[in-house]
Each structure stands twice: as C-alpha cells, then as structure tokens.
C-alpha cells in the first residue's frame, strides 16, 4: 500500500509561563492511501495537536521542535506558511469537531464551499458553481442549489457537518483529517456521517486520519488504531487486534470503560486518576501512576515500543518478556 503520510518522532511543544512544554512527545505513525487511521485517547493526550501539527495550524505559542512529517514524499515541517497554505484545503483537508461553529456565520454555504476552489483551482465561475452543487449532492444534501444560498444558521448540525465535509472534499484531497467529526452530533446523525466518510474514502481513495475518543466510532471506521496517552503513542495495531487483543494497560482501560449493553453483568471500569499536566514531571512510563500493573522498573525507565505482531506494537514493559499472558486478565475483568 502506498504511504501517504509518514510522521517520524514528532515533538510539538508549547511556550507557556512554565517554559517550553511538549504536548506531543516523539510520535511516529503513517497513513496509507485508502486507509483510516484512528487516533484515540483522552482529551488532552495530544491527539488534536498531532493533527494540527500535520496541518501546520498550531496555535501561535506552539511549534514543532523535532521530527519530520513527510506527505507524499515532501517534508512538511520545513515548509513556510505560504507553502503549507497550498496544501491546506487542497491535498490535505480537515474537518473539525463542532459543525455549529466551524462554518462562518456571515457567509453563505456557497461562498464557503467555493473558497477552496478559488484558492486552489483555476475553475471559472460557472464551473465552480457546478462543482459546489456536485459536492453538496455527493455528501447527501438534497436540493444543493438551495443549500448554496443558505447561511449556516439555517441548517441543522448534521447538514452543517455534511457541508464541512463537502468543503474539505472540494479539491479532491489525498489526506482527510477529521478531528472528532461526530462528537457534537446526535447518534443517528453520527452513524450517517461516519458511513458517508467511509464511502467517500473508498470512492476517492483518500487516506483518513480520524481523531476520536469514542471507541464505537473506532470500531465503525478504523483500519488501524493508534492509542495516545500524555503525548506518547502507547499502542498501535489493526483495529481487530486492538479490540480483540489489546496489549497496553491503558488501551485495556479505555476498552473497559466502554459501556456494553449486551452483557448484563458488565461493570464499567474507569481508569483511576487523570491525565498528567504538561508540566508534570513523571519519570519512567508516563502511565505508571495510573497503571494497575506498574512495576518498579516502570517508575524509572520509559519503555520502548515492543512488537507484539507484525503491525501491532505496545509501549509497555509488560511485553518485554515474550510470554506474558497471565497478566492480561488480571485487573480489567
């Protein structure tokens, strides 16, 4: 499979009153063409910052301090804002969490959908209108010509998110980044939007990088999953492996905290404690204060990524020993 995006050892830091603090600490991953990578983790674990680093849209006090981001062979971290601008909305697009606020309230849908076409294509006025209508029907909006003339406040949340997707697709991106695209939507609409994104991914052959904290969404759309905790990738693997054979205690915790309606005896397990602050100094593994399996070693040395299988890795000392199955069902069961 063709690699679209290749991120290596990405470190993104923020200048704060306490000095420069890393929010993303050496993250590496790749996204292939036609594949959906889901990044999961608690709020504040660095997943959104990872996507904004790829887009080059970090807040003013944030910067990429280490690592590389190769997109279709081009190194993005070395590019100026003006050079990045040519990628944004063109071959890399992004959809955000809040469809209610992500569209500009004072411009019509038509204006906003044509904007990337104005910026990245040489289409004439008529062609742009035709393309806009085509995009709106592609995302399943009926009466696209009418929708073009509407303002965001005249549309429902689901319709707005469809418009957002249409905007993101305007220039046929190779990579679509979606930051919790369904979190703000009703459950029924969520499913529609996820199906839509999945279909479009297949039709257009895009790579999709989706940030979510909803394991249900992961199960629905992911090909591969990357679990992040406190700025680190703690586990990566194919979606089936992550769900069936989660390795990292944090991943297990995440899965155990998903309600299960089929199993009446199922008790929801919360992961004790909370995500450390950016400025909290934690030696060893950053998850050890919350980890039910923490050993002495975990408090001293940060674990490397251990290979579980071909595509499955876990950043946990428990996997240092080849055969360590006994621990697996010790706590979260």
């Amino acid at each position, binding site marked *: 499979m063709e690699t679209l995006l290749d991120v290596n050892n990405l470190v993104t830091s923020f200048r704060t009153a306490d000095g420069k603090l890393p929010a993303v600490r050496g993250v590496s991953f790749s996204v292939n063409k036609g594949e959906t990578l889901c990044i999961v983790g608690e709020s504040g674990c660095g997943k959104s910052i990872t996507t904004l680093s790829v*887009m080059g849209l970090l807040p003013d006090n944030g910067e990429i301090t280490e690592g590389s981001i190769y997109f279709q062979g081009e190194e993005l971290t070395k590019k100026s*804002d003006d050079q990045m601008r040519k990628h944004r909305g063109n071959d890399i697009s992004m959809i*955000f969490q809040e469809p209610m606020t992500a569209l*500009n*309230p004072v411009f019509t849908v038509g204006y906003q959908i044509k*904007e*990337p076409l104005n910026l990245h294509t040489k289409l004439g006025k008529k062609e742009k209108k035709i393309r806009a209508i085509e995009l709106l029907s592609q995302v399943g909006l009926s009466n696209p010509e009418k929708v073009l003339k509407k303002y965001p*406040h005249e549309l429902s949340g689901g319709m707005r998110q469809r418009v957002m997707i249409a905007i993101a697709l305007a220039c046929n991106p190779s990579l679509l980044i979606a930051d919790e695209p369904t979190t703000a939507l009703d459950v029924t609409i969520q499913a529609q939007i996820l199906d839509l994104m999945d279909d479009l991914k297949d039709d257009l052959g895009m790579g999709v990088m989706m940030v979510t904290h909803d394991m249900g969404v992961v199960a629905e759309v992911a090909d591969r999953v990357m679990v992040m905790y406190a700025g680190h990738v703690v586990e990566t693997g194919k979606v089936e492996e992550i769900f069936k054979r989660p390795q990292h205690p944090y991943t297990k915790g995440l899965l155990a905290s998903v309600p299960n309606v089929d199993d009446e005896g199922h008790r929801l397990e919360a992961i004790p404690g909370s995500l450390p602050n950016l400025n909290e100094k934690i030696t060893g593994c950053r998850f050890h204060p919350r980890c039910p399996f923490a050993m002495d070693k975990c408090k001293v040395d940060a674990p490397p990524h251990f290979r579980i299988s071909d595509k499955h890795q876990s950043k946990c000392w428990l996997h240092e020993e080849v055969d360590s199955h006994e621990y697996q069902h010790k706590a979260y069961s």
Partner: protein
Amino acid sequence: MLGLIGKRLLQLVFLLFGISFLVFMSMHLAPGDPATIIGGPTATESDLDAIRAELGLNNPILVQYLDYIRGVVQGDLGYSFQNNQSVSESIATRFPQTLNLAIASMVVAVLIGVPAGIISAIKQNSWFDVSSTTIALAGISIPNFWLGAMLILIFSVELQWLPVGGLNAPFWTIEGMKQLILPAITLGTASAAMIARMSRSAMLEVIRADYIRTARAKGVRKNVVVWVHALRNAMIPVITVIGLNFGFLLGGTIITEQVFAINGVGRLMIDAIAARDFPVVQGTVLLVATLFVIVNLLVDIIYAFIDPRISYD
C-alpha cells in the same frame, strides 16, 4: 425591515412626547425666570408682568405645555424668548456645523480606532498592542476641554498652522478642513479610544473562533482570514459603539463647540438653558432625541446587513 422602521418611528413619537413633557416640566420647575433675563436688571415688576403675559408664562403649566405641543405637531417649534427668532430656523442654521463636526470626528475615530483595535488583537501583547491600549486608556481619560485647549495652544498659538476656532467655511475647502482638524481630533479621540478597545476585544474573541481555523484549514491567507472572515463577525459590537458615539456627537458637543467657538447646536442649547429660553431648549432636546433614535435605527438596520442571523421580519 419596513416593520422595524415603522415600529421605531411610532416609538419615536411617544418618546418625543415623553421627553418634551419631562423637559418642559423640569425647565419650569428649575429656578430662574425668563422674564427677568429678557427684561434685564432695570426692568420693573410691571415690565416683567407684561413680558410674562406676552410669553404666555402666566397660564397654567399644563395649558402652556399643550399650547407648545399643538405647535410642535404642526411643525412649529415656537420662537426664542431672547430674540424672537424661529426655533426651527435657529436649529437649521446651527445644525450643519454640528453635523459637519460630528461626521469629521467619527471619520477620525473610525479610521484610527478600528485598525488600531484589530492590529492590537492580532498582535496581542506586542509592543503595538501595549502602546495602543495605553494610548486608548489615555484617550478615554483625557477631558475634552483640556485636549482642545492644548491642541489650540500647540497648533494654533505656537505653530500657527491651524485656526484657533470657528467653523464657517464649507468642509470641502482648504480653509474648512483646517478649521475642522482640531475640533475633530478633540472630539474624535475619546470615540477612537472606545472604538479601538471594542474592536480589540471583539476581534480577540472572533479570531479564536472555530470558523477562523476552518478558513485557515482551507488555505486562506492569514490577512484575508482577518480582514474578510473575522472582521465582519467582529463588527457588530463595534458598530454599536460607533452608533452610540455618533448619536452623542450629533446632539452637539457643548464643551468642544465652546472651546473652538463653533456655533453649533450644543452652544445653542447651553446658551438657551442659561437664558431660560424654554422654546429653544425644548427644540434642541427634541432634535437630539430624534437624531439618537434615528442613528440607533440605522445601527439596527446595518446589523441585519452584516449578520444574516439578525432578521427583523
């Protein structure tokens, strides 16, 4: 939209009744007798009686008020106690100066305030932001009469670049512009400061909005994001402040007109109050109230053009 305009104009009628009543009563309740001022220090009691009778001041106050209102409804604002000039005419000769000054001050205020506020916001905590917010604070705090006097001292007396006062040449002539500069700056400074502060805070809120990030994610240039996507969203509170300030300025600016010897509505009003010239006071107050309501109506109409979410239908 037409509904809004009709409703506001209807409200204006009631408002003017209320205001005229309050002003009428308070003028008559306030100490001071127009007859003694008109008659002068040598007038005898019988002279004063004659003057009062002539002005209708001996009638019961409600009768006086109704007489006045009857005139106003017919478009007659009465005649000045002091010089018997028609009040409408005095206002008509004075108002152009005030309008001229108000517009010039607002132009100064908007041209300085809006860009200063926006640049402050997008370069938050930069030296520009710090100095512009400091200057804005000073601009709001400095009293008009002091600023006007200082400007006259520097630019008229010392440097002799600009006239000391007066505003009689048309504004499109060089002389007219020269006359306008100092009073417009004097008056515009406080408004500019208020507009700058409002633009800054409105812009700061808007540039953090999700749709700004969306625009950036589309590949829109940073400055286009600010001046196209953000500005229009930030304008609602700024337009409100501009409208309020303009409303005040149109009512005549008593102090600045006094400092620069400009024969505007503000001076007309203050002179009339001093002379207990009831019809002139009434007339100018009604003018101010009407203008204020109209400016606010215009602001509301502009809202609907800026923000499609605002609709009056």
